[in-house]
């Protein structure tokens, strides 16, 4: 069971401070949603956790060990990252794309085991029919599933997702998040997901970290974080929060004040 601790992380691009003393803790088998307005630092936080960016201050501990002390491949075996956008310029089949997830586990030749893992994940995400298609020919929703499949074949203990549902229609949004929940439960892994849609966040996460201006604004279970006051304060929007089937349901009304 994995445990991730982020302590006082600060990150600046050039002179702009994007993260200010951010701390969080991720429990085993937990899905943590990171919400907040544009520019709050959600994506930067996720990139820092996966060591794609190096924070200037603070530590990130994976089972008590500083991630900077881990070898890159070692870290890749434990954390998988699904970027918001991707830029596959040259042709690649879905099968080969998912096989890339095996990179941390293999030398320069893949073997039968890797092939089986790819087939297993394709089945898990129900994208077997796409296996031999080119990744650039797929729709946004299908691509997102392929990228999740790639990260799942990596067999990480923590999945990091950056806006997995942006650009997806509502059916694909639900499919992708349902799949994610299934994987987390089935494999006993944890996930951190930056997400814009507050209703989806309320429904699919165990706890929510709300960010504003690079700092943690509120943290806790969805109903304690997604309150009228918090949302109005962080986003500058007047909302109505209803409880629907035990989860908060947010209805945006109008922007308020100056931002």
């Amino acid at each position: 069971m994995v445990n991730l601790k982020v302590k006082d992380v600060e990150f600046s691009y050039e002179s702009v401070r994007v993260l200010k003393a951010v701390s969080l803790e991720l429990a085993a088998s937990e899905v943590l949603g990171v919400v907040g307005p544009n520019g709050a630092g959600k994506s930067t936080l996720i990139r820092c956790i996966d060591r794609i960016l190096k924070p200037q201050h603070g530590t990130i501990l994976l089972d008590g060990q500083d991630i900077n002390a881990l070898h890159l491949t070692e870290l890749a075996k434990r954390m998988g990252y699904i970027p918001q956008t991707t830029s596959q310029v040259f042709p690649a089949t879905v099968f080969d794309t998912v096989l890339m997830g095996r990179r941390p586990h293999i030398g320069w030749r893949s073997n039968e085991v890797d092939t089986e893992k790819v087939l297993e994940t394709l089945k898990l995400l129900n994208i077997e029919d796409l296996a031999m298609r080119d990744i650039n020919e797929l729709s946004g929703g299908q691509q997102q599933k392929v990228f999740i499949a790639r990260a799942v074949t990596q067999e990480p203990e923590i999945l990091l997702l950056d806006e997995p549902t942006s650009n997806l229609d509502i059916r694909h949004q639900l499919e992708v998040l349902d799949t994610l929940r299934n994987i987390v439960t089935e494999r006993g892994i944890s996930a951190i997901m930056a997400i814009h849609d507050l209703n989806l966040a309320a429904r699919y996460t165990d706890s929510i970290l709300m960010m504003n201006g690079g700092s943690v604004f509120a943290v806790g279970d969805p109903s304690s974080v997604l309150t009228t006051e918090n949302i109005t304060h962080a986003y500058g929007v007047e909302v109505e929060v209803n409880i629907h089937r035990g989860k908060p349901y947010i209805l945006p009304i109008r922007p308020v004040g100056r931002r």
Partner: protein
Amino acid sequence: MVSSTERITETSKSAVIKAQYKKYIDRKIIFILFSIALIVIITGISATLGPYSITVPEVYSIIWQGLFQHPATTEEFVVWNLRLPRILMAVLAGMGLAIAGTMMQGIVRNPLASPYTLGISSGAGFGAVIAIIYGTGLIPWAGSGYLTIVNAFAFSLIPVFVIMALARFRRATPEMMILAGIAMMFVFYGYTHLIYYFADPDAMKEAYFWTIGGLGRASWETLTPMAVMLAFCIPLLMWRSWDLNVMGAGDETAKSLGVNVERVRLLIMILASLLTASIISFTGCIGFVGLVAPHICRICIGGDNRFLIPASGLFGATFLLCMSTLGRTILAPVIIPEGVMMACIGGPFFFILLIGKKKEYW
């Protein structure tokens, strides 16, 4: 009952994908084997062409015998010392430039990258022109016979160092690297033409011929350093093919999959540039093959670098060998330089493929 039927259909689905994938891999292997066969056949034909007539079976038997003894007869001398060096140089140069092009396109994730567009060819051209016209170079103690080669080699590495410095100190993106390469290409062209403008016409003609690029200087002496460089760089580059695949998905994804993106990019850039420089300093600027061979192979067998690198090397070798053979025959006894043939015939050929391709890739 229901669940057991379901299980059967699901396993068969996996089996179908596996079979399809195997077929897909087999197709790539066939492409590679076919290219090797083609090189052997064209070598045989190419060695028969020329004023002294020899048949194809004779060529193969002469090549075979020559492996064990020094050429004695006229036929043997013609094949081994006159025709084979040029043929082998076409194969080695085509292979090296195509592989260097594949790697460069891979690391900057841009279909426009090639020895030309990263400024390597124009750097080499500038170095050669200085050596030919002024008789001097960056490394003046190089013997006069090697001055042009050494100078071309030295200058061709300047753009690479500039690009690497940008990447190191200004954290240049792949796009910035390619733009910097193009900028340097123009700078070197500009200075080359400035030298031409004030040069003595005879010297200028010689320098100009060098920049066109051809295999006229092929000999066993020039083949050796080139072959050594290929034998050194190609295995190292192939070893990185998996990393290159992962980097194709973007820097962030590659990092999250455990690839040290900056270091791999630097290593590949150095190796690919050394490979290119060691070829074009002997042949002049035959850059086009480095741009098109990877693209043609991607159209045929897809973008998996584990297969694309050998395939595009072999295809590049075949392509340059064909152009060289054509260049020696169509206006015989005049030999048209390979650089010209490549652009005049290879260009339209690539254009037709580009229009005709079925899938949208880049």
